């Protein structure tokens, strides 16, 4: 009964943040475009040569055509799908892995904790973007390899967060009370520790999605995207040599990335404020 009241209170708190509300609307719109857009457009797909190249926007084509004559608007819509799918799936994997490893290390401490710390230190030392490039290059660029590469470099921050939360919660007296009552570790973790750090995980997850989208766009800018899939970064990279002649080809997809990532960041901030209400009277 109180769960419903909790959810209502949370929504009210979230709605108080005007920017986060707007950002949520923008994000929903982007998701809708990504899901429904390809069905509503002409059947050709983003790689179809729809018309003469270098058509400026606001003409026959809403956003113009690129250097080969591909429709920019169509490319943008399909690119939304790519970015969101890769961002979400990679983050999901990274989160699952991070929560698992971080949780074990944080709760049990000792050897598992030491091992995790060493591992995340090594990952912190490896320049993550270079590593992602390497992984994609070796596995040959495809959606799967990009997702794997991003997940592999994203899990350490999540693992460190979860480890920190689990460790501090495991020391809290209410958790110790549960242990002293003879509860199994699984029950303590699932029913008492995890619910209390879920909000941090959600907020960090949302920020990881934003980072994943930025990484994916950088990878595809450098030419490491799936050749069968249109991506915003790829659009900017392909148009790079034509900056002087048709600057909008670089500008527009970049703006799309900017808006999406900004919206996700704002939603993440909004979630943070709504899930951890403090007196914001500064």
């Amino acid at each position: 009964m109180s769960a419903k009241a909790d959810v209502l209170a949370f929504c009210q708190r979230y709605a108080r943040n005007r920017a986060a509300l707007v950002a949520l609307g923008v994000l929903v719109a982007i998701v809708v475009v990504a899901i429904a857009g390809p069905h509503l457009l002409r059947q050709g797909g983003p790689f179809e040569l729809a018309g003469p190249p270098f058509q400026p926007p606001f003409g026959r084509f809403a956003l113009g055509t690129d250097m080969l004559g591909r429709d920019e608007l169509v490319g943008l819509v399909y690119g939304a799908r790519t970015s969101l799918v890769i961002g979400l799936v990679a983050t999901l994997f990274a989160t699952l892995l991070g929560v698992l490893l971080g949780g074990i290390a944080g709760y049990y401490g000792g050897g598992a904790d030491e091992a995790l710390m060493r591992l995340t230190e090594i990952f912190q030392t490896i320049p993550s973007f270079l590593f992602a490039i390497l992984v994609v290059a070796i596995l040959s660029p495809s959606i799967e390899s990009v997702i794997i590469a991003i997940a592999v470099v994203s899990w350490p921050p999540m693992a460190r967060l979860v480890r920190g939360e689990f460790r501090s919660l495991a020391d809290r007296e209410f958790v110790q009370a549960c242990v002293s009552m003879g509860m199994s570790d699984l029950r303590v973790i699932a029913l008492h520790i995890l619910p209390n750090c879920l909000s941090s995980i959600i907020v960090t997850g949302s920020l990881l999605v934003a980072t994943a989208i930025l990484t994916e766009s950088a990878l595809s800018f450098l030419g490491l995207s799936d050749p069968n899939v249109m991506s915003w970064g790829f659009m900017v990279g392909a148009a790079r040599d034509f900056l002087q002649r048709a600057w909008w080809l670089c500008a527009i997809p970049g703006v799309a990335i900017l808006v999406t990532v900004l919206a996700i960041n704002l939603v993440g901030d909004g979630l943070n404020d709504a899930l951890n209400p403090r007196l914001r009277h500064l």
Partner: protein
Amino acid sequence: MQVARGRARYIGRRLVQAVPTILVIVTLNFLLVHLAPGNAADVLAGEAGSATPQYMAYLRHQFGLDQPLYVQYLDYLKNVVTLELGYSFREGMAVRDLILQRLGPTLLLMGTTIVLSIGVGILLGLVAAGRPNSLRDNAISTFALVAYATPLFWVGLMFILLFSIELRWLPTSGMTNIAAFYTGWRKVGDVARHLVLPALTLSLFYMALYVRLMRSSMLEQSGMDYVVTARSKGLTERAITWRHVLRNACLPVVTMAGVQVGNLLGGSVVVETVFGWPGIGLLAFRALFARDLNLLLGIFFVAACLVIAVNIIVDVIYSVLDPRIRLR
């Protein structure tokens, strides 16, 4: 003094501790080569197309691909330790020499970026926290929010569009004006002019990060008990901010800067590619294009060593700022 001796010993110890990490990275390199589908030599030769039989034979010899795996591994280790990082057929030079040649520009870019992003970040964060929720705070916070969401490559291209193409204030790419053979101070000025846009581009994202961090850190420290004590001593608010709060508030920023070094190197790949800056980032991009895995792995290894070195420096700097951390 005793503290300095302690620091020297600490650095020595950290270098020793770094050995296992480097070992893991080298092993990772080795595994990556053999993880790639297809024959390792094929992978290493890449789709360059111009892999002559001699080169293939050389590669096979270097990696001992006809020998058992562990022997290959030990050979590889030995090579890396002696900095024998292989030969890049595409570039026509030994990998080691290639990297050394390009390391300077990257260090210059990274150094400038670190100084710029931390300096401006701390300053703006300080200003923003000075009067929370004021107009200037909102302006700075919004700027940070947007900058944090902006893709590096796009910002670089937009800067080129604006400053190089439209306004013609700054050059579009490269590190120097090759046609003009500047020497001495004119050369420095030339490099500086070329450095502006790449450094600005790379700094933007991290500047945004440090601004947000510094702002929240300042606000957090301002609520601490020692600030009330300082006030009770009769200090002005300005003195309290500059002499008490600032130093404490900088600490998380320094820590974060250390964490971000690896990401910074990754970002330099993109920025150097966009601006044609002749550093190891651009080299990595070219190696990628040419599928020159040998060169890529060499760059990866050197980059990791660089990150380790910078991390040690950052930890030492942190220990200078925070007397609670004593390096022994």
